[in-house]
């Protein structure tokens, strides 16, 4: 005899339907396991339960979220990098890194592939934006003295990121294989070869030729050709992006481990108490210190007292980061809609461009290289890089950390350094444009003298002298660093602008391209 089943028990089918209905909700729940981030606890788990977000601290200091603190330049750099990464991968679907088809494939991307032109424009603009933001980010870190203990090494990693960024941009420059690309890279390769200037003058080139070796490593040949293209391609799409990603991870990780962004010692007084309607500062006062905090540098939250000047990173920090991210995307897309990436004639090794110009961020160097490649292209940049790298180890004080132009001298010193930096660069440039340089005066002058006495070395020496004076005047390494960094930034801007806009055929000076001779 059959027993009638209770009608209330769901059948397997009903259960299946119920589960199916619940599936979307459950997928969401299991994806974000902590539930809605609406309490301190759930906000925290939201962050450290997420592989992508857990590099962030759970709470962010209000100082950090002020726009003036960072100007969002670091995030903007990352945003630009991600944009180049995504658009770059898309471009790889169509780009062919062989000299006989490379140019054609770029033409196809530009004119045939749907949205190809926009993608290529975004890639190009994002790359340029990235160079700018990386440089500005570095300036921000410098002017707020954020390189100081415990962030010294992160400053060095940041410099590594700058070099890799320039390398990425430079290697990408060759890939279109047009005249612009070809001759810009030829110039770059000749700069790499420039130590030969010195070895030649000393008669050593036959036995010791680091310049030739550098160029050979870069190009795989004597001239820019098929080997160079494949090398640059591999560097551009594989080696340098991986290097950048690795350095970037360390950079982020260190920011976190070094206690977030640099803040002035008296940050709490400077901020004052938070205004009343501020988003909940904390919902549960801690009643014990977290031992985890011992691993992270900085002060642990005090027992019985909430960290008034921190706010939950979720959502405050993420709004800020996403906001800057989207602003960067907006800028890149707007620039891409407004202006197309250049594409000139197919590369022709027999017809040099005149003037042949390197990518814009190297035009300041090219301005110096025009006088002697070794001093302008190797010595001065090396001095700059070494000087930058030494800054955190020479400036050991802690006065003014976290403040713009913080430290002895302050803004008045920076202001005066801007005047000096611009003045010296403009004066030297005006002098050489008006009166020429050594070779015009003494035709038979030895190459070694040419190499040593470059306008770049002159400018560097003058900047150095100004900086040393400032060190003595304020008896502070920070003052010297402020002076020197400001001067070099000004020099970079002046030389880059002159190289970009005022140099014509045979590197002659012209007020405008309209004045260039016809041939």
């Amino acid at each position, binding site marked *: 005899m059959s027993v009638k089943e209770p009608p209330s028990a769901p059948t397997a089918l009903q259960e299946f339907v119920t589960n199916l209905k619940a599936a979307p909700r459950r997928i969401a729940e299991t994806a974000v396991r902590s539930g809605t981030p609406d309490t301190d606890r759930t906000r925290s788990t939201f962050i450290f339960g997420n592989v992508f977000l857990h590099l962030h601290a759970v709470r962010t200091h209000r100082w950090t*979220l002020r*726009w003036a603190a960072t100007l969002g330049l670091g995030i903007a750099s990352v945003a630009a990098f991600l944009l180049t990464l995504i658009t770059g991968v898309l471009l790889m679907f169509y780009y062919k890194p062989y000299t006989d088809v490379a*140019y054609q494939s770029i*033409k*196809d991307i530009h*004119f*045939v592939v*749907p*949205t190809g032109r*926009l993608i290529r424009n975004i890639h190009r603009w994002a790359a340029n934006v990235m160079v700018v933001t990386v440089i500005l980010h570095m300036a921000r870190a410098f002017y707020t003295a954020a390189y100081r203990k415990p962030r010294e090494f992160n400053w060095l990693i940041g410099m590594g990121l700058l070099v890799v960024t320039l390398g990425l941009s430079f290697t990408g420059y060759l890939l279109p294989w*047009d*005249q612009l690309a070809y001759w810009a890279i030829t110039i770059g390769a000749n700069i790499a070869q420039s130590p030969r200037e010195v070895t030649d003058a000393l008669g050593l080139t036959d036995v010791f030729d680091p310049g030739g070796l550098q160029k050979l490593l870069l190009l795989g040949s004597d001239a820019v050709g098929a080997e160079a293209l494949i090398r640059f391609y591999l560097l551009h799409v594989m080696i340098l992006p991986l290097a950048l990603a690795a350095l970037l991870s360390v950079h982020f990780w260190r920011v976190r481990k070094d206690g977030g962004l640099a803040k002035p010692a008296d940050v709490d007084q400077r901020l004052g108490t938070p205004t009343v309607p*501020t*988003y909940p500062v904390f919902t549960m006062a801690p009643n014990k210190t977290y031992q985890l905090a011992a691993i992270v540098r900085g002060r642990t939250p005090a027992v019985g007292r909430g960290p008034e000047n921190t*706010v939950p990173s979720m959502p*405050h920090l993420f*709004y*800020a980061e*996403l*906001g*800057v991210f*989207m*602003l960067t*995307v*907006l800028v890149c*897309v*707007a620039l891409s*809609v407004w202006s197309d990436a250049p*594409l*000139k*004639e*197919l590369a*022709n090794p027999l*017809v040099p461009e005149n003037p042949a110009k390197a990518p814009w961020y190297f035009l300041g160097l090219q301005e110096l290289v025009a006088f002697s490649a070794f001093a302008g292209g190797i010595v001065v940049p090396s001095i700059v890089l070494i000087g930058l790298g030494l800054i955190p180890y020479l400036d050991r004080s802690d006065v003014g950390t976290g403040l713009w132009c913080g430290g002895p001298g302050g803004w008045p010193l920076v202001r005066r350094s801007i005047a000096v930096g611009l003045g010296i660069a403009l004066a030297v440039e005006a002098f050489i444009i008006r009166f020429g340089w050594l070779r015009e005066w003494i035709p038979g002058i030895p190459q070694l003298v040419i190499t040593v006495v470059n306008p770049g070395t002159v400018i560097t020496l003058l900047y150095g002298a100004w900086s040393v004076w400032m060190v003595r005047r304020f008896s502070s390494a920070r003052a010297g660093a402020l002076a020197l960094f400001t001067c070099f930034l000004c020099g970079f801007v002046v030389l880059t602008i002159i190289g970009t806009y005022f140099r014509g055929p045979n590197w002659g000076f012209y007020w405008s391209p309209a004045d260039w001779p*016809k*041939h």
Partner: protein
Amino acid sequence: MKKNKYLLLLSSLGTLILLVGAAVQENFGKDWRKIQATAHSDEGPIPVQLRQIVNGTLRTSDRCVSCHVAMGPGEQSVTGSPLLVQHKKVVHDPAEYGCAICHGGQGQATEKEAAHGEVEFWPEPMLPASRSYAGCGTCHATLHVPNHQTYLRARATFERLDCRTCHRVNDRGGTVRPGGGSLEGPDLSRVGLAGYAADWYPRHLQHVSDAASATAPSPPPSAPPSAWKTAFAPVSGEDQAAVKTYLDLLVGAPQFVEAKSVFNSSGCLGCHKISGVGGDEATDLSRAGERDPGQLPFHEVAGRPTLENWLGEHFRSPSGVVANSRMPALAVSDQDIDWLTFYVLSLRRRELPSTYVPRDRVRATKLGEREYADDGATLFGTFCAGCHGPKGLGRRSPGMPSFPSIASPGFLALASDDFLIATIRQGRPGRRMPGWERDGGLTRDDIAKVVAWLRETSGTQAKPDPKPRRWVETGQGTADKDLGKRLYAASCSGCHGDKGQGIEGPALNNQILLANATDTFLAETISGGREGTSMQGFLAGSSSRRSLSPQEIEAVIAFIRTWEVTRK
């Protein structure tokens, strides 16, 4: 902290707007959409979609029909925008062949500027509309094209004989006969390719006589017998030959053929090679019509930087356009420069599957048939006229030694046929004249024809020379080499060089010259000079230089002969 929220909101909105705008522009803002939206076929509005002609065998995928819809397969009835016109009736249906194979340009692009190649630095722009027929050269090689003069004469003969009264050629002629009823002969526009009855002339005469006798056993097609009575009259043999020449050149592309005939009168192959034929001195021109303008120097070229403009200026002043060019300025009319530009633009190639290689190209590449006619005048025009001038009277071009006049009666009277043939065969090593008896050059038969033409055009036969080839030293033995050396240094070395290497004048130490020139040739040339050149006769007195006696001339010859390397 609210401002971060607004920053995020506004940036995201801005980006969204830009991307949506770009997407709309990309998907809906294209010109071809607007054009197609105006279009109607017999069945009403046409679907707006990207259209293309695909031919896998030719590797064609041309999207030109997205705008030029009415030229696509089965779309002839589409009208609307003024752009929507059918293609002119052509043998190569664009629906099968696509567009870019003939017209050039970028077939896959979907915007006008990019497709037509009007974009800055575009490597392969479209052929200009006025030169569309240059596209034929991509696949076709019209064979046996004579020089321009012969072509014009043949065409004029065809016109003079009123062949067009009955026959339609290139969309002209073949109208209804006035007063005689309709007499429509076959369209002859492409008989050069399709072929025609070789016995057309006797058959025409037969029709006339049949019509006259009114028996007409086999009435010719499409014409009442009465019309034949007056339609045709006997034609001289010479005119028949001219008509044959013209018919063979009717390939449906009159401009292409005429341009080639001008090319075959300009001597370019003397230095340039095309498809393995011609000289080695200069650039191979086989693909000169598809050169990337971006790779050419445009400093001296006026107008837009197109290959067309570059070629025109280059023909006018080769060394002005290309630094260190050794090409002589052509000194021909603007009209001819136009034709040459046309022809060079037609020098393009495309890899074709064998089923698509046209017969004329097969005959040229596989069967060794030639693209120039084999009469002496055309051979001279094709290979020699570039340096020796259209009439063989030499050419002077600034910055290079003058090219000798070889058709002047004085020279031809002295030079034996053997001398001329040997010179053409072996050339002048060290000078720009190459030896022509080789692959890609001339056959012995050709060389004989060129010599015959030189004789014919100058009306000069070689004077018979009773003396032996070498009589100066074997004669009385009076020739004094030392005296010759002094005289040479004083009178000759200024132009011919102190070692006979040639400066402004030709090289005299040239072994092939020394081997082939008889003593009589040398003696007569020295005493009489060479008309049309700076070589004056030395026998006659001159106010500006010392004259030479016959003995002295012999001494000079004896000295010149000392440069000859005697083989043992």
